[in-house]
């Protein structure tokens, strides 16, 4: 791994570009932003995500200067920006409606901000050409905004807001007006441009998929508060609250009471099939290693004639031959551990908690739950794609019986709605690797829902 991970928020020495310090914004009685403090770092792609009316647009408009905080301060590069009107801030904004000037050509739209800076004609022309090239709009320079397509308009708006090389670019639902296909392509284009220009981007969106795709960090907002701000991976895999888990993607939420697990080697609830899970771990390990070693031996080797040909002829052209078989680099300790447990679903990781979620049902084993939660009411958040579904009882830490109520066919995926014994509905997602006709699970089938002890996240609120 040559590339150093971009995580300035974990670096105590990194200086934030933007600091919100106890910022509150009220419109009359309505509290739009409720005492928020957070930092955004240079070169970040920061997403403000939330339902409409959660305060994300207000947050952005305060950065642009169209709204002033009622209380608290916003610092840009260490300086309080409150005294600066929008036209004096090194911040530019891309508007949701694009706000292109209809009476000006694409070229003049992009040049608009540069002209206000009183730059020379040559400087302006050079910069506009650069922006046109960056956004691939060269051949539309002379057109008026109403003569180009929606996607092109979006790129003009982006070029115009980037032309002044702002320290911070604000994007207000920049892709809302594009159709799904174009939106996806544009998301990658945005990331590409952000990387090329090295500008800090703050994007406001209600589309969680968009936020996850483009952003280095996502701040999930609700009722004027940031509930959680972290990388898309953490937000998705380890949501801090029920709200975040529910807002980002699909999730199954199972409520229950936690209990600390006793032994390290506890097995799944006693059922005949689960008995062999208790086998010694050492035996399992060697069994697992053996096929790997065999596959290494099966690497193709040249025969005698090939060796001769190489030594006599090709050696001079291609250089010495490596006899050692090619291998992947050794996995890092964390990876190998994960791989080892992943390949052995029947060995359950030690520690954690069990969750008693329904009368007469086996408790759920959650090895990554905090034993300190014992006795409390908790919620287990499970992503549908982390649930397995099968007709026979699988060898898994957690297996729950249920009945298929509904199947949503999405093309690449199918989502199965399964009703568990106590009436709880869960969603399980399966990749459609086989054709429809070959799949054996259908409506009204009795199935087993299974998931690993590390699959879920325990939420205590």
């Amino acid at each position, binding site marked *: 791994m040559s590339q150093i991970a971009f995580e300035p928020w974990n670096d105590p020495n990194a200086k934030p570009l933007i600091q919100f310090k106890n910022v509150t914004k009220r419109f009359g009685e309505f509290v739009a932003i409720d005492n928020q403090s957070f930092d955004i770092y240079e070169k970040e792609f920061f997403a403000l995500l939330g339902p409409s009316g959660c305060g994300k647009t207000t947050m952005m408009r305060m950065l*642009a*200067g*169209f709204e002033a905080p009622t209380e608290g301060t916003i610092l840009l590069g260490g300086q309080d920006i409150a005294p600066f*009107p*929008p*036209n004096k801030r090194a*911040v*530019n*904004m891309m*508007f*949701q*409606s694009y*706000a292109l*000037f*209809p*009476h000006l050509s694409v070229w003049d739209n992009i040049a*608009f*901000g540069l002209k*206000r*800076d009183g730059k020379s004609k040559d400087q302006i022309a050079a910069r506009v050409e650069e922006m046109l090239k960056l956004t691939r709009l060269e051949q539309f320079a002379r057109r008026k905004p*109403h003569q180009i397509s929606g996607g092109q308009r979006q790129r003009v708006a982006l070029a*115009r*807001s980037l032309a*002044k090389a702002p320290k911070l670019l604000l994007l207000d639902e920049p892709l809302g007006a594009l159709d799904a296909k174009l939106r996806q392509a544009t998301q990658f284009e945005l990331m590409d441009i952000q990387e090329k220009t090295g500008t800090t981007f703050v994007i406001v969106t209600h589309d969680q998929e968009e936020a996850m795709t483009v952003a280095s960090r996502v701040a999930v907002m609700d009722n004027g508060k940031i509930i959680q701000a972290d990388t898309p991976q953490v937000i998705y895999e380890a949501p801090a609250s029920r709200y975040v888990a529910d807002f980002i993607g699909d999730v199954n939420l199972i409520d229950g009471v936690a209990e600390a697990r006793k032994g390290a080697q506890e097995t799944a609830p006693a059922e005949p099939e689960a008995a062999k899970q208790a086998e010694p771990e050492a035996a399992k390990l060697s069994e697992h290693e053996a096929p790997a070693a065999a596959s290494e031996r099966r690497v193709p080797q040249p025969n005698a004639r090939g060796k001769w040909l190489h030594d006599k002829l090709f050696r001079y052209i291609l250089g010495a031959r490596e006899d050692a078989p090619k291998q992947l680099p050794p996995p890092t300790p964390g990876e190998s551990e994960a791989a080892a447990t992943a390949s052995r679903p029947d060995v359950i990781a030690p520690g954690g908690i069990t969750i008693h979620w329904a009368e007469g049902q086996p408790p759920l084993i959650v090895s990554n739950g905090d034993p300190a939660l014992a006795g409390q009411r908790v919620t287990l958040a499970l992503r549908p794609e982390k649930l397995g579904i099968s007709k026979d009882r699988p060898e898994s830490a957690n297996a729950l019986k249920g009945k298929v109520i509904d199947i949503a066919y999405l093309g690449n995926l199918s989502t199965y709605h399964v009703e568990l014994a106590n009436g709880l509905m869960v969603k399980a997602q399966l990749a459609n690797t086989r054709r429809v006709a070959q799949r054996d699970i259908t409506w009204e089938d009795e199935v087993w829902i299974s998931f690993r002890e590390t699959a879920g996240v325990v939420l205590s609120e």
Partner: protein
Amino acid sequence: MRRATLILLPYLWLLALFLVPFVIVLKISLSDIALAIPPYTPTLDFSAGWQGIRNFFAGLDFENFVFLTTDDLYWKAYLSSLKIASIATFCTLLVGYPIAYGMANAPDHWRPTLMMLVILPFWTSFLIRVYSWMGILSTEGYLNQLLLGMGLISEPLTILNTPVAVYIGIVYTYLPFMILPIYSALERMDGSLLEAAEDLGCSRVKAFWLITVPLSKTGIIAGCFLVFIPTIGEFVIPSLLGGSQTLMIGKVLWEEFFNNRDWPVASAVAVVLLLILIIPIVLFQRNEQKQREAEG
């Protein structure tokens, strides 16, 4: 067949209401004055047959148009009308634009009321409204009494029967025609455009000149033509408020027609006026068309 009839209908309408009267006026302008009923000659006499029609056409000439060039009253009246109409249009724009701007930026629930207030004067007779201005502007009028009472002036101002009174009358009368097109252009404007301009480094004033004014251009042009075109031929306002000093072609036309009973010369004046107005009318229609294209 039915489609042809449908298309024909507006043409018949135009023919009956515009072209036929115009041809009659044009014919009178080519005739000579006569002490008769109607007061011109020749008249078309079908009873005399073919000879009558030949005599009729032989009697027509351009004498009246030549006459218009010999007396400097006429071209002075035309020029004066153009000048008064231009200045009055400009004044109306200066007064109307801020009103339209204020209406477009007013809270949504206020707009219908404001619109109503602009249109309200049309519900009263135009003549009565102009007469009431005489009461306001005269030497003993309300305006002078107010200014004297406040101690701003010591001698009453002479406004009535001067060109200033004509300008006041025209601006007052035609203001709604200026406000409505500008308001409709401003109301359509996306507010985020001004925020974008500010975001890109404009001050508020600069954003107004660079964004708001160009985007309301079609409204300004439409409003100016709607005021300018009827003002040139305006007759009531200059005769009621302008006194004898104000020379306008509409007044000249009236005097030729009713005081001199010289229908042929009056018709010639009207035909020339129409020719002068054709230019701004064509420009106006081109502006409307451009606007439609920009929107479509």
